[in-house]
Each structure stands twice: as C-alpha cells, then as structure tokens.
C-alpha cells in the first residue's frame, strides 16, 4: 500500500473476488422463485397435404399445417434475473409404421419474450416451421398431442424449463388431396 500502484493493485484484485461472490449469490437466488403459470391451448385438426420440400424436390413429402390458439399469462416468470423467455409449441406423436412405435417430437412454433410487458401471450396462428414426418407420410400416425413449453434464460444461473399448457385430448389428422 505504500504507493499508488500497489493500492490500485490491491483494489483490482479484491474487486473481482467480490463480484464473483455477488454473481454466485444472484445465481443461487433463482431457487427462491418458483412460479408455475398455466395457459390455454386449442388446436384445430391438422391438415396434411402432399407437397415438395425445397431441398429434395423429387421426394413425395407430406406437410402438416397446424392452426392453433394460445393464451397464457407468463408474467410471473419474469424476475430480476430473467434475461428472456423462450416459448415453444411442441407436437408429440407416435408413428406406428413398422414394428416399433416411434415417439416423435417436433417444434412447430416458437417465440422469444424479452420484456415482462410482452409476457401475456394471446396468439392465433399457424406453424412457423415445417411440420413433416421423416418417413414422408402421416398416414400411420393416429393422432398428436401439443404442448406449450417455456425456457427461462437468466442473466446468471441455471436454465429452467417448464410446461405451460397441454392439449387435453389428441388432435386428429385430416388428409387433403390437394391444396
């Protein structure tokens, strides 16, 4: 401490240790926030059309079109550590083609919410991403369930996941011959 240089050295060594302790306390404070908001989700029957993708133009592919209504109030998830909220709508279905019954999970819509004011979701729309089955056809898929899930992304701390809404009954597929 005898010179300015050593005083600056001392402070600049102790300050990052204090900052790291502060960040650890902030990260641990996430366990105090347990919010589990629920919402509503309604899906009309999914229509499957034969179509082509851009990448494989010669392949017969069936695309599903999902129209849905979401309403949820997720403001309780925004606390001081929340940086943003990642919402995604997932379709889960089983493909009974072949011997095994394969479980599939497809994300058809997502949204990033950065402010608490935007956390009240009232959205009606269709799927953002292509909903297609790897085996090119939805014929062997009896029905599908949809769930709205969220992921809380903090400034510092662990990522937490949760589910806000789920369809109570399975949604059927409707096959159309042409658009």
């Amino acid at each position, binding site marked *: *401490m005898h*010179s*300015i240089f050593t*005083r600056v050295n001392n*402070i600049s060594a102790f300050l990052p240790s*204090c900052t790291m302790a*502060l960040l650890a306390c*902030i990260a641990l404070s996430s366990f105090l926030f347990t919010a589990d908001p629920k919402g509503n989700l309604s899906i009309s029957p999914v229509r499957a059309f034969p179509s082509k993708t851009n990448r494989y133009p010669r392949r017969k592919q069936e695309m599903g079109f999902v129209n849905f209504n979401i309403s949820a109030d997720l403001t309780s998830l925004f606390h001081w550590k929340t940086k943003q909220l990642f919402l995604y709508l997932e379709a889960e279905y089983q493909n009974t083609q072949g011997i095994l019954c394969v479980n599939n999970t497809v994300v058809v819509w997502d949204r990033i919410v950065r402010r608490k004011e935007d956390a009240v979701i009232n959205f009606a729309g269709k799927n953002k991403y292509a909903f297609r089955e790897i085996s090119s056809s939805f014929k062997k898929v009896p029905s599908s369930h949809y769930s709205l899930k969220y992921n809380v992304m903090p400034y510092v701390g662990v990522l937490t996941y949760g589910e806000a809404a789920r369809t109570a009954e399975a949604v059927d597929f409707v096959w159309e011959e042409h658009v």
Partner: protein
Amino acid sequence: MSGNVLQEYLEGKIDFAGQKLVDDIVRIWLIAATAISFVAGFALQSLLVTFSILGLSTVALLVVVIPPWPMFNRHPVKWLPVAETKKSK
C-alpha cells in the same frame, strides 16, 4: 532537496499507519458494497440497481484511497539523526 517532484506525485507514498488504515478501509468497504448492492437489487428486483451501486461505490473507494491524503500521513516515520562515521582517517 527531495528527488523528482513528478516521481513523488506518481508514487503517492503514505506512512505505515496510513497503510494499515487503507488496508482496512478497502476490505470493509468492498465487502459492505457487495452485500448492500445484492440486498438492494434483490429488494428492487433489478440487476441494474445491483451493479450500479457496486460500480459507484468502487469509484468512491478509489477517490478515498488512491490519492495520498494527509489523513494517511499523520504518523510519519521518525528517522534517527545521521550518525557520525567512526572511521579513522
């Protein structure tokens, strides 16, 4: 004549009692600032409050501790008078 004036300014020497005081001030100030900023930010639910309190208190600490204020120089070292060299010529 003491040495270079600029060198003395840059060195900012303080005496030993002052150094102990500075050591205590830095440690207590930074720990208190961390605790206060966490509590205030948690109460107001804002990370901006937390880090701005921490930053401002660090700047205030720099102003208090870095320059060699007279309060750190109140107990200067008492040097003994120059002893006669006993070498016989």
